[in-house]
Structures are given as structure tokens and as C-alpha cells.
């Protein structure tokens, strides 16, 4: 950086260009219309048959509303691109990442609050181990295949019955 640049007075942010009130009124009308559309969809669409579609459409309209509000009312449209590119994607991605746990709610709904069962390979391992011990000790008393019962591990009880 040149000496001149280092000692140059810091530039002050340029004031926003004046936006006519009519533009804000227009956006307000659009927001109201979109909200009215949401209400109409919520009341008309069948709740049981089209629940997912309903939620997706309602959220899409909410995102559109948010975009309008951010761009015009919160003036992001008139800020430097560097600013909104710095904050909007980062915030959106952070919120989207919290949704990683969301599909688990479908598991809870469909299968209930199940606890993890002993996995198949581990059970086979237990069998093999006990068979091996039986052979080493008393080969006559070797348990029949399928009758070996491993003690359930602490905290690993049977799965709860699925909810109806």
C-alpha cells in the first residue's frame, strides 16, 4: 500500500439512494397478497392427504416473503454485494445444517422411541466366542446352534413396540 493510501482519510459510507414510498407500498401489497395466498392454501388444501406439499408450498412462500423483506425493507438490495454475500449464505447454511436431524423425526413417528438392538454381526460374534469356549472346556456340553443366549448388555434392552 502506498504512503498516500495509508494516510488517506477513511471513506465514509455513501448514503442510500432515496427510495420512493410508492415502492415500499408496492412491496407491502405484495407481502400481504402472498400471506393471503398462504392462508388460502392452509384452509383449502387437505391436511392429511397433502400435508407435505402444503408445508413445502407454505415455506416456499415464506422464503419469498423473507427475500422481499430483506431486499427492500431491510435495504440489502442497496448495500454492497460484498456485504450480503458475506452474511446471507452463511446464515442460510447454518440454519439449513440444523435440519440434518430432521429425518430422525420420521423414524420416531413411524417406529417409536426405539433403543438400539445388538447388531447382527455382534450376535454372531458372541455365538462364535461361546462356541469356542465350549469346545475348549467341555466339548460334550456344547450347546446346540441357535440356543446360545448372550446376556443382554446393560442399557440395551429390547426395542420398544412401535407406536401405532
Amino acid at each position, binding site marked *: 500500500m502506498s504512503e498516500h493510501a495509508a494516510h*488517506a482519510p477513511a471513506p465514509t459510507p455513501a448514503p442510500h439512494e*432515496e427510495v420512493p414510498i410508492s415502492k*415500499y407500498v408496492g412491496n407491502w401489497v405484495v407481502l400481504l397478497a402472498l400471506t393471503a395466498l398462504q392462508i388460502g392454501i392452509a384452509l383449502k388444501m387437505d391436511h392429511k392427504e397433502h400435508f407435505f406439499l402444503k408445508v413445502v408450498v*407454505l415455506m416456499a412462500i415464506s422464503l419469498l416473503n423473507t427475500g422481499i423483506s430483506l431486499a427492500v425493507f431491510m435495504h440489502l438490495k442497496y448495500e*454492497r454485494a460484498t456485504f450480503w454475500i458475506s452474511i446471507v449464505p452463511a446464515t442460510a447454511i447454518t440454519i439449513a445444517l440444523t435440519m440434518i436431524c430432521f429425518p430422525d423425526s420420521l423414524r420416531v413417528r413411524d417406529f417409536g422411541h426405539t433403543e438400539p438392538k445388538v447388531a447382527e454381526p455382534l450376535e454372531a460374534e458372541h455365538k462364535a466366542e461361546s462356541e469356542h469356549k465350549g469346545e475348549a472346556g467341555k466339548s460334550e456340553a456344547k450347546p446346540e446352534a441357535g440356543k446360545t443366549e448372550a446376556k443382554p448388555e446393560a442399557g440395551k434392552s429390547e426395542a420398544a413396540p412401535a407406536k401405532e
Partner: protein
Amino acid sequence: MSGAAIEAKGNPWSGGTLPYALHSKKFGMWLFLVSDAISFGAILVAYAYVRMAEGNWPLHFSTSSVGLASVMTFLLMTSSLTMMVALSKARAKDRVQASNWIFITMALGLGFIAIHGYEWMHLIEHGITPSSFAFEEGEELIKGPPMFGGTFFLITGMHMLHITGGVVYLFGMGLAYRFGKFRLVDLEVMGLYWHFVDLVWMFVFPMVYLTSVDTKL
């Protein structure tokens, strides 16, 4: 090329001493709003989780409840517009008019709080509290998933806390600005906050109310 020269050329990626060309107060408010947006986002995702996990989620809101919530939405959206009018008057250096429009915005916020308070009282009277969900149907007491009350009061409570804080903020700023204190940028910072609470409601309204409306009620 010096930073000033780049600024003069209008390159938005010039960086330098003011990469965002944004007032520090506004930048501070934006950082707060980002953190708040993440908090609300996390709460709404948690709500969506319990909403989906519970197969028998009650459709507790009647069309009249949605009507009330729609009026609340209208008040908030209109308050965003009146806030912009206040800012426009402040740019025109008309402090009295700007202050008046801020008070109108505040009144709309108070209307929102009043309707929301009424709705809360109505729900509590019917046995829905933050820790329980039970309502009387004839002589029978019907119990539902307790998470309904918990999530409903948490989300709307946190939002109402923001609105209440915003109303106090509007009152203080409106009064002080009328008597010559504060500058335009301070009003713009307050406007950002107010628009944000409106923006959050745009998600709360469909997620909490519109997906739990029983059209037969």
C-alpha cells in the same frame, strides 16, 4: 492503485478500509440479527422435529384463531411500512413527522401484543400451558402431546419478547428523536431490528398456525 482510487471506480470488491461501506452501528445490528436468526432457526427446526415425530399432533387452531393470527400478521407487515415512512421523513429532516410515524409503528406493535396476549389467555383458560396440553370437551378432559404447549409458548413467547423489546426501543427512540437526539443512522438501525421481528413472524405464522389449523372447527 490506491484503495481510494478503487473506491472511486466503484468496484464492489475493492476491500480497503470499508469493505462493506456500512456504518459500524448498522454492521453491529446486522451481526446481532444474524445470531438471532440462527437462534430462531434452531427453535423452528426443533419445533418441526417434534411436530413431525408426534403422529397425533393436535389441530388446535380454529379458523377464527387463524383469523386473529392473520390480523396480527397484517399489523406487523403494516408496521414495517410505517417504519419505512418514518425513515423517509427522517431523511427529509422532518423530526416531528418521523417521530409521529415511529409512534404509529409502536401502536401497531402494541396491537400485536394485545391480540397475542388475548390468544394466550384463551389457550391457558382451555388448559394449554407451557408444560401441558389438556382441554375440556364436554365433561371429558382430553390429554394431548405436552410438547404442543411447550413449543407454542416458547416460539411465540420468544417472538413476543422481541416485539416487546422493539416497542420499548421505538418509544425511546421516537421520543428522543423528536427532541433532537440521535441521527438518521440510529433510526435505520432500529428499523433493521423492527423489520427482522416482522420477518421472523413470516415463518412462525405458517409453521405454528397454518399447519395446525382445523378447518372443521
